[in-house]
């Protein structure tokens, strides 16, 4: 089984690739457009330098060679959402080439080649009045998306299973997010994937007939569609027939791939050099500066975290999955030495609270210092573990410090000996019969009295101290 992927990622530049319109997601339809991105007569493109920078950063993060000179080409085809009826892309001189990605699947280290990374422009978006294009009376087109910069990443046919394809994509997404060039939201379409797949007999060398699958809108879809396609091709081959070279669409609802067009119907894009843009000369000093500016990449970071903090693979994977979480952890770890506890909090309650609040870590009010303060309150027995969860929710909701929240909610544990003694005496006096049975050895009633004290103190009594005082009193 031979799989290669083509990935499109929208770059998170503020303005579009050839004009100054905003790239923000959504917005009133056709409100973020100008003569350039609408392809009006006479409009000319001007290359956004930040898009080039992001493209180079992506290429460097994927271990590519950055071309000293590349150029733009026109890819010609008619489609209503393509304003100029050609897409400005890069054909035979891509910005980056010959890279590779390392990724893991079930603890095995794998390697896939990256053929090329090139820059191009996004098309608009068709919105059909019915469920699909054929069942629609009319379609509307929103050109807000037209002209958003894209990188297309093409892999070598190095992947050998649907699971590998999915793991590769996850690593790719992580990498692009690490260098902050794309938000990679498959649900918003800012990361998209097409897959090429062919089968060949075990041990064979020649590649079989290739089929392209489009419309893969999630990692799960990539894996499912490839699983389905492998099975379909196997069935075809087992009947002695040949696989037909075609382009197929994944139908998520039905779980099948459907033929879109055969080889004979494939487009002739009539690529030729874009005359409106001069060749793109890339300054190699700039490339070196960008190379130096690259952050630590996901796998090295994961390995370092395992080693440096003595965390397990699962926990380290969790942290290194996002540079933001890893940074948060490492920042907190400078002030708090129990790394396992810290990491467990991040994986457990912090994740849970943020999910419930539908927040991402950078937008959250929780700071590493606030979390450390919270953990110290628990360690110092000022609050209990379960109280700490409430405090965390409040900190995330209000941004106040953990100490302040604890005080405001009146959560500090009462550890004062006299105060606790008074409460213990009060409950013993209130339940003389049970006290007597307890003195006679009915051990489980100690718990009952602890509960009574906790109730009396509205949960604030330090349960350990209460327990000790009770035993002391009952022995008197």
């Amino acid at each position, binding site marked *: 089984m031979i799989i290669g992927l083509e990935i499109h990622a929208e770059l998170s530049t503020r303005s579009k690739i050839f004009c100054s319109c905003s790239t923000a997601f959504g917005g009133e339809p056709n409100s973020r457009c100008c003569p350039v991105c609408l392809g009006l007569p*006479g409009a000319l493109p*001007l290359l956004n330098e930040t898009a080039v920078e992001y493209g180079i950063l992506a290429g460097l993060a994927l271990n590519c060679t950055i071309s000293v000179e590349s150029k733009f080409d026109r890819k*010609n085809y*008619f489609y209503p959402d393509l*304003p100029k009826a050609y897409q400005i892309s890069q054909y035979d001189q891509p910005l980056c080439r010959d890279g590779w990605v390392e990724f893991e699947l079930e603890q095995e280290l794998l390697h896939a080649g990256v053929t090329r990374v090139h820059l191009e422009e996004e098309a608009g978006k068709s919105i059909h009045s019915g469920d699909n294009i054929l069942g629609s009376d009319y379609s509307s087109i929103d050109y807000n998306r037209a002209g958003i910069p894209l990188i297309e990443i093409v892999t070598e046919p190095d992947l050998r299973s649907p699971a590998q394809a999915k793991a590769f994509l996850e690593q790719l997404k992580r990498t692009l997010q690490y260098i902050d060039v794309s938000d990679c939201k498959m649900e918003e379409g800012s990361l998209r994937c097409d897959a090429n797949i062919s089968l060949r007999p075990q041990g064979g060398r020649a590649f079989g007939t290739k089929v392209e699958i489009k419309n893969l809108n999630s990692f799960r879809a990539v894996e499912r569609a490839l699983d389905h396609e492998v099975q379909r091709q196997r069935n075809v081959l087992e009947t002695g027939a040949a696989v037909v070279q075609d382009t197929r669409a994944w139908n998520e609802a039905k779980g099948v791939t459907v033929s879109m067009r055969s080889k004979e119907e494939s487009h002739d894009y*009539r690529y030729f050099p874009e005359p409106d843009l*001069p060749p793109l000369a890339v300054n190699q000093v700039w490339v070196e500066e960008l190379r130096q500016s690259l952050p630590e990449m996901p796998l090295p970071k994961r390995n370092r975290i395992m080693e440096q903090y003595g965390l397990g693979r699962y926990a380290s994977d969790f942290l290194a999955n996002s540079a933001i979480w890893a940074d948060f952890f490492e920042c907190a770890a400078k002030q708090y030495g129990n790394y396992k506890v810290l990491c467990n909090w991040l994986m457990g309650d912090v994740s849970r609270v943020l999910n419930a609040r539908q927040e991402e870590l950078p937008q959250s009010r929780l700071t590493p210092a606030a979390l450390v303060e919270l953990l110290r309150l628990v360690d110092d027995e000022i609050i209990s573990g379960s109280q700490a969860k409430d405090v965390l929710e409040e900190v995330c909701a209000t941004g106040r410090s953990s100490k302040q929240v604890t005080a405001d909610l009146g959560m500090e544990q009462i550890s004062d000996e006299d105060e606790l003694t008074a409460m213990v005496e009060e409950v013993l006096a209130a339940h003389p019969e049970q006290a007597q049975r307890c003195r006679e050895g009915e051990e489980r009633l100690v718990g009952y009295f602890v509960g009574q004290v906790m109730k009396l103190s509205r949960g604030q009594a330090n349960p350990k101290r209460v327990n000790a005082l009770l035993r002391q009193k009952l022995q008197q």
Partner: protein
Amino acid sequence: MKLHTLEAWSLRDLIRDGSVTSTDIVESFLDQIRARDAEIGAYITVCGEQALEAAKHSDERRREGRTLSDWDGIPAAIKDNISVKGVANTCGSHMLAQYHAPYDAHVVSLLKQAGMPILGKTNMDEFAMGSSTEFSALKTTRNPWDRQKVPGGSSGGSAAAVASHQAPWALGSDTGGSVREPAAFCGLVGIKPTYGRVSRRGLVAFASSLDQIGMLTHSVRDGAALLQLLAGHDELDSTSVRREVPSYESVLGAGASGLRVGLLGGASQQGLQPEIHEALEQAACFLADQGAEIQEHAFPLLDKAIETYYLVATAEASSNLARYDGVRYGLRVEGSDTGEMFRRTRSEGFGPEVKRRIMLGTYALSAGYYEAYYRKAQQVRTMIRDGFLELFEKVDVLLGPTTAASAFGFGEKPDPLQMYLTDIYTVPANLAGLPAIHVPVGLDHGGLPIGLQITASPFAETNALRSAAVLETFARNRGWNR
């Protein structure tokens, strides 16, 4: 005084010494348009009210001593493929007959910033594809010198407007000779600047690597002045060049002394109308008399210029014109699905010459033909450009014909190939990106203007203008009087 008969420089002098106002001038041209244009057909859109409004503002500025430029208040006409905000921009096509440009072309912004009123938009071959303006889908433009003759093209409306004194000067566009050939047919000076010297932003693209905005004027000094206004870097046009603009006016009196002038012999000169051939020889003698050094050179590769040009131009055009699909603006002819809508819109919206070129260009770019046609054409183009650069090591300018003959009659060139061949002397400058100027030098036996072409190396407009000014003297000596 008939203001509309004056060249722009004279109008400038009059307005400056206070003897006339911009309103007087604009009214004079609008009167002339009302009087003549029914017969000539130069304009597709006349912007009378806006022009008068702009003239009024110009007069106010002048009274208050805050004029915007030397040319404040002097009007101009614009070819209908150069965008003027809020004004129809038809490109001479049914496809864009109802399209109004929502923004100003860079050159139009520059004219407006200089305080110049815009008289209107002029007729042209559809999408600038043609050499006679006969391919305009919207109207017929006649040659003011002889109404049975074509004005040339594709900037035929601009040429006819200036030649019939319906505008003091006009902007055109030159992809393969579309400024110089109509200038030749209408007895005007026509300038095609170096590729990249004037911004193309807002000029509706025909062939992006060849298109250049140019000027049609009564005199070389008018042409130099208009070029001075429009030349310069536009940061929003990536093909516009960041390079200092020299003073063009100051070279006009430099004469021919020491100028190295090249003449190209060879087969291509053999079909010349005898009067043009004679004028060429006399002009060379005149230049030599004025102290120029005349050299003869051969450039056999130029025999391939027409084929090369028509491959590159049509290939780019097939892509540039693909956007007219009925989806966003312009003509839409409905169909049962988008594919049918595209086909019907483009079948009905484009005329025969545009369709012919789109098909040629699509073919040249198609898989399996690209190498043989488009790639090969680009290689020849590079060789032609290199050949010129080598030649311009030895000479400062080249002197030659602009057209093989004076204006032809309507319907006289029904064969497309015959029409294409009228561009034989003009396309080399576009292929190589060179500046070239047509200068009228006299009339032929039929009373039609004839003239000659000066070509210079990239960005050496100064050499071309300097030589053109000498040719102008030559023409005056021969009795040429516009």
